[in-house]
């Protein structure tokens, strides 16, 4: 059945409880993209045949494959987006320098996203509290006193 690899990506994240960041599954993403390419090419062939030879009986199959393409797209987008949410939370938990062990789990594009996110947050914090700005990532817990 199609889309098995895609749902595995989602399950992998679901298993990583409480916002932990598992290693980036580059191989998994690649496999899903390859499946999408194959599905799309098969559909292109069938669409051409349906048009040129009047094979309207191929329409259900074309629709089936299109559903699978949409499913794969959705799973990949959700996988990547959820990882960004976890990475974003790391800025608040660890500060602007992430531990090596966590950076090791991130791909180059995620590191770049994190750097941009830090900049956006810094710009925002500078805009608060008059000239001095305000570090809103401090004092996340009430002081012991």
């Amino acid at each position, binding site marked *: 059945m199609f889309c098995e690899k895609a749902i595995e990506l989602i399950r992998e994240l679901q298993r990583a409880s409480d916002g932990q960041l598992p290693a980036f599954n580059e191989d998994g993403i690649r496999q899903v993209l390859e499946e999408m390419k194959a599905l799309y090419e098969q559909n292109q062939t069938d669409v051409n045949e349906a048009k040129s030879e009047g094979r309207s009986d191929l329409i259900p*199959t074309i629709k089936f494959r299109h559903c699978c393409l949409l499913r794969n797209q959705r799973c990949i987008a959700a996988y990547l987006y959820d990882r960004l949410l976890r990475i974003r939370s790391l800025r608040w938990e660890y500060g602007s320098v992430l531990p090596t062990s966590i950076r090791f789990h991130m791909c180059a594009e995620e590191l770049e996203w994190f750097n941009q996110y830090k900049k956006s947050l810094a710009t925002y914090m500078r805009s608060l509290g008059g000239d001095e700005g305000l570090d809103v990532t401090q004092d996340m817990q009430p002081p012991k006193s």
Partner: protein
Amino acid sequence: TQSYLPVPPGVGMEENFLSLDDILLSQEKLPTRTECVFPRLGFVEKTSDTRDIPEGTKMEMPLWLAKGLYDNKRRLVSVEQPKIYRQGWRTVFSADPNVVDLHKMGPYYYGLGSQLLHFDSPENPEIAQTVLQTYIGRFRRIMDSSQNAYNEDTSALVERLDVLERSLFRTGQIGLNDFQRWEKGQ
């Protein structure tokens, strides 16, 4: 971490596109029947010896695919209700919703029940009503147990709950723990 805020699941019949919970919910299988031939897809249905999926094939299809193929006008697939939503089980739920192990029978009892309403059936109003009344009937115990189990093993309390109910229980526990920490000045 407290700052990790995943995309939440949709409410009722809605799904949130980027919600991991909704994606997993939509992976649940439904009993279906093909209402036409699906050429060149015989390999998908492993029991099929032919190149095509024949018309009239009964197969367990994931919800996402059933929703994508379902169309009132052009019948490609028809969807049956899973047992837990049929009359026999609806009677059980109306008698006492608390006796059912919704983890074993689900684990997405409410989610899948809501999604079933996308497929036309004369039983849909009753299914909707049963799902709603079951939730109402079980809510009180979940709330009470989540508020009274402090700093203890809760596995026995959640083992018969469906996914939505476990989320509810977790929310109750978070509230309880937060309150206890506040009382202690933490």
